[in-house]
């Protein structure tokens, strides 16, 4: 087992590398994490709780949850449909399709917000059309949902595609010869076989959706109490030098991030048993 290198490598090397790693870790990762909680509690627990109970904070929390609750199921449905099409069938253009699915992952979140302004903003391609029908998208919750959905679009699909690819389509073929239609096959045969990967993808999608900042910042207009999600509210508070309030709200997200990491680690342990195909995060 490769861990035996602890014995094989010279002692000074092992110790030096471990120390370097731990210091790097502490400096780069742990310090920021600790700072969030330290700053949040700087003025004591009372101030902390007051900050979270503040109506604007509450509204921001609520908005974050709503946007996430819409974006994640949408992208989950998309992920399953895309993975089904790509892994159970042969057709021309598959590579291009998968590249397109991965695209939102590699572009700046600001650009993800920009494109919706370019389309639906006052001077957007559809701006005049929307105006005619008195529909506004930019600076509303709808825009937040659109931007968040775009940014988190690939998460579920990326987890499902490699796994389903390696699982093949034999069980589905068997189900169909036994008389099952598309939905029965999907629910009783395919989904049970991918449940851990699905859960994992949904988890990552949720974590990212809740924390999305760049894209929503562009499309939201920062209207306090109306279009400020938690990250945006944090920005507003921080820019007003209301440090404790900003960090208090941030601590909620940080806590959720830690929970995400814990569940993620647990799923990975389980997931590894389930024949996970190789994937790059």
């Amino acid at each position, binding site marked *: 087992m*490769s*861990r035996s*290198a602890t014995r*094989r490598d*010279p002692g000074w*090397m*092992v110790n030096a*590398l*471990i120390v370097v*790693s*731990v210091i790097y*870790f502490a400096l*780069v*990762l742990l*310090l*920021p*994490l600790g700072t*969030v909680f330290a*700053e949040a509690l700087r003025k004591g627990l009372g101030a902390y709780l007051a900050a979270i109970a503040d109506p604007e904070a509450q509204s921001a929390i609520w908005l974050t949850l709503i946007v996430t609750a819409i974006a994640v199921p949408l992208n989950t*449905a*998309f992920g399953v*449909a*895309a993975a*089904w099409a790509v892994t*159970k*069938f042969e057709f021309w253009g598959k590579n291009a*399709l998968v590249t*397109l699915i991965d695209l939102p992952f590699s572009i*700046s*979140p600001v650009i*993800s917000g*920009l494109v919706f*302004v*370019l*389309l639906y903003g006052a001077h*957007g391609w559809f701006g005049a059309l929307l105006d005619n029908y008195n529909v506004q998208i930019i600076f509303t919750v709808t825009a937040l949902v659109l931007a968040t*959905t*775009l940014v988190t679009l690939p998460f579920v699909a990326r987890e499902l595609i490699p796994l389903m690819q390696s699982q093949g389509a034999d069980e589905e073929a068997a189900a169909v010869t036994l008389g099952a239609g*598309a939905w029965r*096959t999907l629910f009783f045969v395919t989904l049970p076989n991918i449940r851990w990967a699905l859960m994992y993808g949904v988890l990552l999608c949720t974590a990212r959706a809740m924390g*999305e*900042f*760049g894209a929503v*910042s*562009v499309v939201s207009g920062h209207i306090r109490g109306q279009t400020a999600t*938690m*990250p*945006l509210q*944090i920005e507003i508070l921080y820019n007003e030098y209301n*440090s404790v309030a900003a*960090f208090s709200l*941030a601590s909620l*997200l*940080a806590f959720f*991030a830690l929970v995400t*990491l814990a569940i*993620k680690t647990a799923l990975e342990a389980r997931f590894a048993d389930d024949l996970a195909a*190789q994937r*790059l*995060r």
Partner: protein
Amino acid sequence: MLPGFGPALGFTLLYLSFFVLIPLAALVLRPWEAGFGHFWAVISDARTLDALRLSFGASFIAASINAVFGTIVAWVLVRYDFPARRLLDALVDLPFALPTAVAGIALAAIYAPNGIIGSLFAPMGVRIAYTPLGVMIALIFVGFPFMVRSIQPVLEDLDLEAEEAAATLGANRLRTIWQIVLPAIAPAILAGFSLALARAVGEYGSVIFIAGNIPNVSEIAPLLIVIRLDEFDYAGAAAVGFVMLSISFLLLLALNTLQDFISRRGRS
């Protein structure tokens, strides 16, 4: 002959058109609507060039630093056993899981002149927050997991026998690592570098608080997009976005080709 192909593919294409293709079309077509002159003016503007330089430059340096330390961390996590190893392994993904704005204000607080680390350097006249240096440090945070997670699986699958053979032939550990292990994981390091770079270039939330946002000095490219949008210069904003995307695309293409070249050399 499984059922459901039509609906699945149809829905997928519709969804992608709405969320990716049409928005992308807008990004590709709109930079030119105010004329090529305006496009050129925007992207050749000193402020734009400085912002691009900062975004790409800081990302490059941050990714390089992560390449070195990320490799060390990956090595330590894979090869050595020590208390809290599993905890550290789980925490590697923190930058990935933590919202960017949260990381952003935390980093700004740490490296501000009155922050924990900022205050150590302030007396020497070295400012970290609100300078390009701060931007770079934020980008190190952001790119860290990409590097480690790229290298880890490759290290885990490495054939120990090659190292053992080197040992029997008289090589010491350092030589073995330099000549045998590093070349084997070089493609993975490069892959991690590309991912960290791509992520850093477009990063906004983690950086916007610690950057000074002073034009021509500490302004990142994504901020320029936001500023132009605020001025209703849609074509200009699109132009900056278009250029950012194009440079990233070319960079990634180059890095992928390099990666292919390196891994093919090791194979034949």
